[in-house]
């Protein structure tokens, strides 16, 4: 079992750094996670729109959205998503939002 200490709390993560239990995540952990994976910090309001959308989709549907879904539904355009999370929006937003990596090809 891999663990990580974020915002003073120890959480369980998988070998790619994604949370095993999304309920262990707190908002204070997001900036630390973002910095670790190269997401530009400080996190902006738009980052937070995406992170909150990721979590609500995950808890509603059991999986986070793909980039296309994110672009269509979160109100943040594809172009902006790649500015906010340059190295892969859905993947990195999921990591920073403490949910498992979304699976999808589009």
């Amino acid at each position, binding site marked *: 079992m891999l663990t990580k200490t974020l915002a003073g709390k120890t959480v369980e993560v998988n070998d790619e750094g994604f949370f095993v239990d999304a309920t262990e995540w707190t908002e204070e952990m997001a900036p630390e996670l973002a910095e670790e994976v190269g997401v530009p910090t400080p996190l902006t309001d738009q980052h937070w729109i995406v992170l909150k959308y990721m979590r609500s989709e995950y808890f509603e549907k059991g999986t986070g959205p793909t*980039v*296309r879904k994110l*672009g269509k539904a979160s109100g943040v355009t*594809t172009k902006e998503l*790649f500015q906010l999370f340059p190295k*892969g929006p*859905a993947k990195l937003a999921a990591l920073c939002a403490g949910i498992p990596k979304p699976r999808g090809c589009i």
Partner: protein
Amino acid sequence: MTTETDSGAQDAPLIPKVVDPKIEKVSIIVSKGSFEGIYPALIMANGARNEGIEANLFFTFFGMDAVHKERYDHIKMATVGNPGLHMATWAGGLPGASALMTKYMEKQMEKQDFPGIAEFVEMISDTGAGMYACLASVDLFGLERDDLIEQLDGIITVGEFYDMAAGGQIIFT
């Protein structure tokens, strides 16, 4: 892929050790103008960007239809010479067969929430992937820059393509 060989050691392994097996960059050549020729290339390019991989698309020959203003929203599936469709060859040649099968496929894709080719091309440009047309093909087909969509980053030579692709993987479709 970067590899590392230890030339000094006598018992160096025969197979070089893989240091960083992650793909950092892909260059995808699109040479066909059919629905099934273009779509997989777009999925590969989009998927690369979603993983944070640098991606460039290079459109050549009939593949240029994917970035042709008047054609990119009307790409058709090949119904002749396509055994994967499991229909009689003569049926594939009937008038309207290609349009009908394309419509059917597009409907299936819509159900899965897949974008159509035109929307997909624009979306891929938004992901920051580079999109280039092949100079030789543009000349051969008598096209102008204005015939191609605005999102296109340029019309380049094969030499320029290789410069751009250096250090990454090349996928030909």
